[in-house]
């Protein structure tokens, strides 16, 4: 799935700060944070509560705007956009997966996944075709007619991932997507996120579990709104075990 668009990062935060309030009571949720996510890359964000993880995710998805700095999604600077244009970028480029409340209970899996495409203005039939493709990519094609209540938590989360990446969407923002799942199911969801990124999507995964963050290419650690730690990208797998003997 790699295309010529890879040069532009899917997501770029440049020198982003977010301050809530003013004067002596101002809260600096983020200070001068720069993070970029390329196509094919999964970046995990860790940090204690209150360190700015959720703020970062909200800024990345255009749900909030920075006090300072720029956010660009697929090369489009969100700062200069009208409200309508911003909503369009949010809908067409970005998908969200949260810990819960992901699916509409009254809609089947296929309807849940095609909904955002119909809202995009794609015809119902075309949206359905795209939805079934997206469900197939997460191995959920056979449950397309099920309602969320008739699925396990892990299956629901797979559908949520399909919905986040249906159609042209390539940037996936996930906030503790395995929170409510047992460890085996949670791992399956992370493997899926990893696989979707390996086939061309880009993802930001907010988690407090190191074992989950370890599925990412890079782990960014926030404390008090600042990036204090970045693991950098992985080396080749061949060099991994040289240090463990003895």
């Amino acid at each position: 799935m790699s295309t010529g668009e890879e040069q532009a990062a899917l997501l770029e935060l440049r020198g982003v700060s977010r301050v809530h309030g003013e004067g002596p009571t101002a809260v600096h949720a983020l200070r001068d944070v720069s993070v970029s996510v390329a196509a094919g890359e999964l970046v995990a964000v860790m940090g204690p509560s209150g360190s700015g993880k959720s703020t970062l995710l909200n800024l990345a998805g255009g749900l909030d705007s920075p006090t300072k700095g720029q956010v660009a999604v697929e090369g489009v600077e969100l700062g200069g956009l009208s409200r309508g244009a911003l909503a369009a970028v949010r809908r067409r480029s970005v998908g969200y997966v949260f810990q819960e409340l992901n699916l509409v209970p009254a809609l089947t899996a296929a309807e849940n996944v095609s909904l955002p495409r119909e809202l995009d203005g794609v015809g119902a039939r075309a949206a359905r075709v795209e939805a079934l493709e997206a469900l197939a990519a997460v191995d959920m094609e056979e449950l397309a007619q099920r309602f969320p209540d008739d699925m396990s938590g892990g299956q629901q989360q797979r559908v949520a991932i399909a919905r986040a990446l249906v159609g042209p969407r390539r940037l996936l923002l996930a906030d503790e997507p395995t929170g409510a799942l047992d460890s085996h199911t949670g791992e399956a969801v992370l493997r899926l996120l990893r696989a979707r990124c390996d086939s061309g999507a880009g993802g930001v995964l907010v988690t407090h579990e190191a074992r989950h963050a370890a599925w990412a290419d890079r782990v960014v650690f926030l404390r008090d709104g600042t990036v204090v730690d970045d693991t950098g990208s992985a080396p080749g797998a061949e060099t991994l075990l040289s240090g463990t003997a003895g």
Partner: protein
Amino acid sequence: MYGYQLRAEFESRTGGTWPLNVGQVYTTLARLERDGLVEPAGELADKDADKHVFYRCTEAGAAELREWFDSPVNPEGRPRDELAIKLGLAVGSPGVDVRAVIQRQRTHTMRTLRDYTRLKADVAETDLAWQLVLDSLIFQAEAEVRWLDYCQERLERAGAEAGGTPLGRGGPSQGEGADGVLAGREDR
């Protein structure tokens, strides 16, 4: 089995995480034979005319092996924990930024954890032995990250209570863990 086969079996079950040299295998076999736990079981020359000595478990050896599988591994028997010692010594040493020590270690361990996870993603479902060994490494690395986060929190809290200097001289409460390590794990 003969020496090379034993080594190959050990490495395949542990994914080559702890490579053995074949000399180690032969010295170990010689010791086991001396102690009556294994005995020679014939020789065979392969197609290159290399001679292989086969060994099998004696009854005493089989009993010893059962005993080993039946007993839990004692943490005191493992090599002492250099990281715990390092942190213990860092707290209260003038001119050492304990937070930086912890953060560096955290980055390092997080990378290790990611790299193991990457390996795990490629391990076949059917290779259960290697998966279990890899999971053991993953959980150990995860535990270390959690412990480091906990240390970081303790330091912040101690700093807040001490009023300003985040890492003043550690009182007994901060030195506790490391003292235990120093006192209790002097083996090897």
